[in-house]
């Protein structure tokens, strides 16, 4: 293979610029790491996130529309001959049905949030998810409420079935929530049955792991996992999920406990930012969550059987 070394001209200006930009980048990284959430770079980051939030919302809407269009195209090509005659007559009706179905699903989700609010006697503010993380390494969502609505960094955020994450930065009219499934998340947790404490952590593979549980504590599939409130990072007594798998036996210090997350990022649409809550309905929510998981499993099974 011929190598063109002669063409690789040396440009002193270019190298000086390279060094300047690299040093500047490292200075920014160091400054960012040293400052707290009120620091200049964190504030600029929050401001930029707030500015791009509407664009993310457009993207999410366009994404949903594209998905719908994809389905429509798929249906059209699958049964083109049969549907051609009926399509025009039914177009308006189909649109109406689709819209009604959308409203019905939204009402269901909002009802679930209201039930959750009642169950926990939550003092908080509801919000819509308007954007998702622009990079692969952070599992975050942007919501449409911010410091003007009383949202502060560190507040717990709940979906219809329980805790989904924590506010990590706020702007006047939006906030960024780090999901509990993010590897950088860590929620002090406890098992409802045994009151044994641990830490629930996310992972890159999307699973939640319950760590630091004493080796002699008995853990069974189906056990309810709640926030313990230790360290003050999450409001105490909120449902995180159910234990779905325990690798290892009681007494094994290296056993791995997997907890089912409440929601997946793609399903998140409405959430509640919790200012304060009293846990009085965890069991009913846990059974709802179990029901939801079972129905998801069975639908997946049916899909797989087809």
């Amino acid at each position, binding site marked *: 293979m011929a190598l*063109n*070394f002669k063409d690789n001209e040396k440009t002193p200006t*270019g190298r000086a610029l390279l060094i300047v*930009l*690299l040093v500047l980048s490292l200075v920014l*990284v160091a400054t960012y790491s040293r400052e707290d959430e009120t620091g200049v770079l964190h504030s600029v980051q929050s401001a930029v996130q707030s500015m791009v939030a509407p*664009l993310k919302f457009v993207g999410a809407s366009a994404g949903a529309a594209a998905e719908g269009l994809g389905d429509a195209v798929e249906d059209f090509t699958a049964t083109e001959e049969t549907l051609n005659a009926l399509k025009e007559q039914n177009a308006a009706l189909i649109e109406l049905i689709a819209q009604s179905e959308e409203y019905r699903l939204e009402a269901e989700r909002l009802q679930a949030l209201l039930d959750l609010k009642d169950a926990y006697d939550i003092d908080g503010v509801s919000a819509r998810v308007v954007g998702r993380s622009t990079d692969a390494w952070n599992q975050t969502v942007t919501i449409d409420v911010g410091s003007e609505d009383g949202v502060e960094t560190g507040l717990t955020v709940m979906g219809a079935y329980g805790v989904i994450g924590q506010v990590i930065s706020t702007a006047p009219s939006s906030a960024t929530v780090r999901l509990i499934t993010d590897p950088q998340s860590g929620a002090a947790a406890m098992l409802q049955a045994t009151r044994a404490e641990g830490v629930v952590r996310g992972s*890159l593979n999307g699973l939640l792991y319950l760590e630091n549980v004493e080796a002699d504590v008995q853990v069974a599939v189906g056990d309810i996992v709640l926030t313990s409130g230790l360290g003050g990072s999450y409001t105490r007594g909120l449902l995180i999920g159910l234990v779905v798998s325990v690798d290892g036996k009681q007494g094994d210090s290296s056993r791995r406990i997997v907890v089912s997350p409440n929601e997946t990022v793609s399903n998140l649409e409405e959430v509640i930012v919790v200012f304060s809550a009293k846990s009085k309905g965890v069991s009913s929510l846990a059974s709802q969550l179990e029901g939801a998981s079972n129905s998801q499993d069975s639908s997946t099974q049916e899909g797989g059987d087809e």
Partner: protein
Amino acid sequence: MSEPRESLATLIGAVVALLLQVVVAPNVSLFGAVPNFILAYCLVVAIVRPRTAGLVMPFILGLMFDLMGSSPVGAMSFLLVLATFAASRIFVVVDNGTLFMPLAMLVIMTLVVEMAYGLFLLSSGLEVSLIDAFFFRGLPCALYDVVLGLLMFPIMMRFASAPQRPDMGSLI
């Protein structure tokens, strides 16, 4: 195409890549892998215009990427500046006029940048194993970026490719 028009095309491409990163990328993630339009674009520009590709654009795009996300500000700008500089310099040396070299450059550089970005996050407190970081993020994201880069490559070759220098042209 004259040099100012090439630069304009590169600038417009940068704005489009930025918009795609904000609007499209979060909605087309596959198994947790979010495509990095900005990385793919910067590398394609470095390959298409190896002698004239600047460093300021990757720096600004990287900075915007960091500011739009929740990671340390400066990490992606550092990596993009370094990667585009290295890619353009190496490509000048190894370019043999086939599609293999741009492809190889894209594969290697995207993988290096994605993993280096992961290392940045690991050093700033992300508690995952290096193996998980590689298999669950680095590799799938890099493959996704390569696909994007291959889509961008012919477009940028058409609109932003630097004209061949007379001496090179005459030799070929």
